[in-house]
């Protein structure tokens, strides 16, 4: 009832509101056509209505969100608006937010109220954004379907019998179902890009080191990166502008001059209006178009590449000869680092402690056996094994060497092209439970995405059509180190000429 009352006051009708860009929302707020309180309440109402059927949000705290919204409104009124003032953003439940329950999708942290803010959360708060809620995810970010969440699986708004992808499935669904104008997620092996692809939205993983990992609960330290998820490349650029930047508390955070990632969105490289992407060379690696790729996905991606050519880009053939090794290497490195990162979850200082135990050793073993889900335990065991005495060289070291080969492949490829493009995922969203019993089959979902994490390269996914069952297909763009702006520009140009990114699932009006 309340939402309808507000709806009648809104200058933008709800359908327009839920598809407004961040820039449009910002303008509405600045012009006081809408307040942040109204905007935030609007989205909270949508969450109340839609989330029960989608399970995208783990925690919503209207009082906290509205308090932030009121503060944002005050700043706007005082003429001190910041880039994201008043914009509600959903946070993947992997980012520590002070005073918020931060569960990482796990029973292990089901009671963990974070005593501090992650760096990214501090940046968003400082930019005036409102924390809309904490989104559901695969437990400890280990998964490609958002089915391993302690809080139950997330559902794809395009088809609620299907998964939204993972591990940032809650954030993807929140944006896809228009419960949030934007969200933040993390990507270790594709966990931003793949759910973006399967849910029909846009998601970006920056160059490793561009976004601080301080406060982002660690899965695989050398692969994890936080990034934005939203409805358009332009929105991603605005979000990245706020998220990116040096943080002295993260030793792997890079000190670089500040960048405006939106600076070349509208700039045609050659000044040619008809062919705004003339001069852009797009590499489509043959390894990404071979066996294993669904024909429906392949068709949509080919159509997208053709569209880029229409915009003036030149398609070149490139090869990433070691592509097939990226999944095996990833499934050594990621579990190895994770097995060590998750050792701190022992029931001593925070988190789950088993209710019954006989002694200290028993307390550890039971707390961890009960607190962690099956997939997390599997990965910890693999990681522990590959690091253990006698196996380190054959597995961990070998994987790090393959990692170098993969990175070198990209270096070579980028001598011939500016952006690498291909499918984000070999298939569209699959049914809930379809791959849950076969870990390896689930891992193969990551086949096109993990290489960018291994090499530390920036990559993003944008919608480019539909496949089997009317499910969204995602196109992956990958750039050379620090070329996010160029990547976003190409995506933006594509989005000016097409409307895949404007499609919304039925039932979320």
């Amino acid at each position, binding site marked *: 009832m309340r939402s309808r009352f507000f709806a009648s006051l809104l200058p933008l009708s709800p359908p327009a509101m839920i598809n407004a860009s961040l820039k449009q929302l910002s303008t509405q707020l600045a012009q006081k056509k809408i307040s942040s309180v109204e905007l935030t309440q609007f989205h909270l109402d949508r969450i109340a209505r839609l989330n029960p059927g989608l399970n995208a949000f783990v925690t919503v705290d209207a009082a906290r969100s509205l308090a932030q919204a009121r503060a944002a409104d005050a700043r706007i009124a005082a003429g001190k608006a910041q880039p994201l003032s008043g914009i509600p953003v959903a946070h993947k439940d992997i980012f520590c937010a002070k005073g918020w329950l931060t569960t990482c999708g796990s029973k292990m942290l089901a009671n963990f109220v974070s005593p501090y803010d992650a760096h990214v959360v501090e940046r968003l708060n400082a930019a005036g954004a409102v924390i809309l809620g904490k989104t559901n995810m695969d437990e400890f970010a280990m998964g490609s379907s958002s089915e391993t969440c302690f809080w139950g699986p997330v559902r794809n708004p395009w088809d609620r019998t299907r998964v939204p992808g993972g591990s940032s499935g809650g954030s993807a669904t929140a944006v896809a179902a228009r419960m949030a104008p934007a969200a933040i997620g993390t990507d270790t092996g594709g966990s931003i890009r793949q759910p973006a692809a399967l849910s029909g939205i846009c998601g970006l993983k920056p160059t490793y080191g561009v976004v601080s990992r301080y406060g982002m609960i660690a899965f695989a330290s050398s692969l994890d990166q936080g990034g934005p998820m939203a409805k358009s490349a332009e929105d991603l650029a605005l979000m990245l502008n706020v998220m990116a930047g040096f943080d002295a508390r993260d030793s792997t955070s890079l000190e670089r001059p500040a960048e405006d990632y939106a600076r070349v969105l509208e700039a045609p490289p050659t000044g040619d209006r008809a062919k705004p992407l003339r001069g852009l060379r797009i590499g489509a690696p043959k390894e990404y178009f071979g066996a294993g790729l669904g024909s429906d996905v392949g068709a949509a991606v080919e159509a997208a590449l053709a569209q880029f050519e229409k915009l003036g880009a030149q398609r070149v053939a490139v090869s990433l000869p070691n592509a097939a090794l990226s999944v095996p290497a990833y499934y050594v490195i990621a579990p190895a680092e994770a097995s060590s990162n998750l050792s701190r979850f022992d029931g001593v200082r925070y988190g789950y402690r088993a209710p019954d135990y006989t002694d200290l050793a028993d307390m550890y073993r039971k707390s961890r056996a009960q607190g962690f889900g099956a997939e997390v335990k599997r990965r910890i*065991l693999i990681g522990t094994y590959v690091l253990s005495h006698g196996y380190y060289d054959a597995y961990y070291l070998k994987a790090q060497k393959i990692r170098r080969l993969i990175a070198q492949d990209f270096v070579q490829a980028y001598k011939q092209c500016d952006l690498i493009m291909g499918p984000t995922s070999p298939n569209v969203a699959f049914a809930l439970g379809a791959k849950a019993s076969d*870990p390896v089959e689930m891992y193969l979902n990551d086949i096109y995405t993990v290489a960018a994490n291994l090499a530390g390269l920036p990559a993003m996914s944008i919608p480019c059509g539909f496949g089997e069952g009317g499910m969204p297909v995602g196109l992956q763009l990958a750039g050379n180190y620090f070329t996010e702006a160029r990547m976003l520009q190409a995506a933006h140009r594509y989005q000016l000429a097409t409307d895949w990114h404007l499609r919304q699932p039925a039932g979320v009006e």
Partner: protein
Amino acid sequence: MSLSLPEVKRVALLARIEITDGEAEVVQGQLNDIFKLIEQMQSVDTEGITPMAHAQDVVQRLREDRVTETDQHALYQSIAPQVENGLYLVPKVIE
């Protein structure tokens, strides 16, 4: 390569995760499937290749030696499972 059941249990012990015999058997099968995936790494020769630990060739930044943290133990311990007199309590540690 393939994990034996005793090895599965040894690894579970190293990782401090309690595992019943039944669970160990199920996990053994799953882990061995995953190892088949990982074994594909052996198909390429990596002789002479330097392992890559980080994407960028950067070196560790150093922090000035200054006290920058204040006492927040009350806040941190408000979420602890068991605390007394400022100490975290655990089952007795035997040296």
